[in-house]
């Protein structure tokens, strides 16, 4: 008798629910929607370019892409105030772009260049841009949920109404730090927003095989006295509404929220993974449930001209072309960089 119920690979297929067409009529300003469209384009196109660069052998180290998962990043990117805080995982390109970080330093960082967002010291898994409120990408599961609490606490004590968002995966809900973080936030009514992007898999293992509840984040919310919101993570409008509500609650001292966004990654877990462990019909169905074409169509339905959308797509493409060229021709970090920035004095001396 196997320990877990279903033999590996024979897990049940989870299909997307159809897009909720009524969201077309949601009270979301059209310019905000266009901004979400743009951000989704920025993410998708950047991820595609990064993949091409990977195939060219130029991307160093590992990287985790978010093709298919753009809507959640984009919606939060638009819903957050520039001075709010966000905390990503290693799958953080999208969240980084969504906060307004330009593509060039992101690409350069993945290429291990001196002009990288963090000077070539972090790589894909550690994108950070404090000036954009993007307080870092964390590659060890769970920690940043606790760290986000600290930012929310600090905002509270400093008397600002900044909120802190932590993005994480379904797999992260089973680690101890998740429990400590949500409990702590709930206990002190911190303005932390916990956003689980449930893409149904941890690395290769289906989340359903290792989790005894259906909704790995949402079903845990009552354990902390919280309600949870489950949304279609591929529908930027759905996420935007949930984000707005959670942000408003956090800003006004109402405490933390848990949002579980249902989504799927188009590709594998990391750059080398073809994702073959996923049943074809499941992949097929989710490829159809793509946030990008749906949102394009929704904007057309809302009366935005195709020319305007096409122009945005063009602008984004041109910017990414420029960024990729610049990143490619940038120099690698100077050797002296090895020794800088362990300490606030800029150096790394541990002795006299």
């Amino acid at each position, binding site marked *: 008798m196997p320990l877990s119920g279903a033999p590996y690979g024979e897990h049940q297929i989870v299909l997307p629910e159809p897009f909720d067409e009524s969201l077309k009529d949601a009270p979301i300003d059209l310019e905000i929607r266009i901004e979400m469209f743009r951000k989704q384009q920025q993410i998708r196109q950047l991820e595609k370019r990064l993949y091409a660069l990977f195939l060219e052998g130029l991307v160093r180290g590992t990287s985790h892409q978010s093709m298919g998962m753009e809507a959640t990043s984009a919606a939060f990117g638009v819903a957050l105030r520039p001075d709010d805080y966000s905390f990503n995982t290693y799958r953080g390109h999208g969240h980084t772009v969504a906060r307004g970080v330009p593509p060039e330093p992101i690409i350069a960082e993945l290429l291990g260049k001196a002009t990288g967002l963090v000077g070539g010291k972090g790589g894909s898994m550690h994108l950070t841009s404090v000036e954009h409120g993007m307080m870092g990408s964390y590659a060890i599961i769970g920690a940043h949920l606790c760290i986000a609490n*600290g930012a929310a606490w600090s905002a509270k004590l400093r008397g600002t109404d900044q909120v802190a968002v932590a993005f994480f995966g379904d797999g992260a809900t089973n680690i101890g730090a998740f429990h*400590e973080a949500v409990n702590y936030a709930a206990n002190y009514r911190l303005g932390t927003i916990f956003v689980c992007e449930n893409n149904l898999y941890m690395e290769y293992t289906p989340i359903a095989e290792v989790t005894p509840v259906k909704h790995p984040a949402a079903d845990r919310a009552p354990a902390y006295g919280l309600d949870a919101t489950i949304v279609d993570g591929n529908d930027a409008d759905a996420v935007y509404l949930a984000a707005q509500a959670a942000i408003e609650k956090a800003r006004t001292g109402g405490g933390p929220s848990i949002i579980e966004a249902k989504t799927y990654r188009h590709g594998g877990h990391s750059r080398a993974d073809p994702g073959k462990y996923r049943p074809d019909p499941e992949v097929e169905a989710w490829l159809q449930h793509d946030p990008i074409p749906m949102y394009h169509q929704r904007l057309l339905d809302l009366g935005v001209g195709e020319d305007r959308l096409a122009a945005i797509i063009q602008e984004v493409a041109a910017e990414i072309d420029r960024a990729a060229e610049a990143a490619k021709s940038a120099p690698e970090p100077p050797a002296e960089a090895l020794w*800088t920035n362990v300490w606030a004095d800029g150096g790394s001396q*541990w002795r006299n």
Partner: protein
Amino acid sequence: MAELTYREAVAAGIAQEMRRDPSVVFLGEDVGGAGGVFKTTAGLLEEFGPDRVVDTPISEQAILGAAMGAAMTGLRPIAEIMFSDFFAVCWDFVANEIAKSRYMTDGMVGCPLVIRSGNGAGLRFGAQHSQSIENWAMAVPGVKVVAPSTPKDLIGLMAASVRDPDPVLLFEHKALYASKGEVPEGEIVDELGTARVLLEGSDATVVALALMVPRALEAADRLAAEGIHVTVIDVRSLVPLDTATILRSVAETSRLFTVEENPRLCGWGAEICSIVTEEGFWDLDGPVVRITTPHLPLASAPNLEDLALPDADRITATIKAALG
């Protein structure tokens, strides 16, 4: 000058900094209302209120996470990890997050925070509540590590740690809490990375830390009575490490002994021995000798615990045998 216990010095040190800088906050388990399980933080909640002195759940990861997130967004948190043994339940935050964030972000995200903790043996608490883990911390690039041995040093190094723009782990020795020492009036601010020469003698250099400092001093006294005169150095700060003071002393005495409480393998004593045998090799007239707790977990029975830790007897005998 007032006489304070090492225990009282903890609260005094924290209070000095909280009075000076409103961004200094303090959090931990039972630290507020109860004044700490060792009563080291009594009075802080009353003076600074529950906004700045936070009693937390038993969630060490949440505690250090909150401290880190607060530090990177404008506060200067002091977090307590009640017993240093418990660092093991939140080591990810120390070793992988707090220590590395500034480097990984090429300087963008710093963590000006202090984690203070009760370290060391002597109270018969057994293997899970008596460890000296300063060497765990020293082994991780990106954190500073201090371990004061007197009330005055505790206040001064606490202040230096709170004011430091980088993360500092401050180890208080549990067996020193009841010890007393003179503390000058007024603000006390010390300097990280400075060892202190407590005694000068030309026959050997003895380097010690925390509880081992009074024991090394006592051994030095006994040795002096037998005509052997040693220099005793309180390392105080493992990172940054005052290698200059140690190397200079060994250049004068030609012999080095380290007295450390952490279990034998890969301790700070090994680090100092290695530095000296690389850089001061030609100064040495004989083997470098580490006097350590054996590489064992700690037993709770008083006689076994006493046997495990270096004491004045063992320090005296080892030095005599090595020099004789």
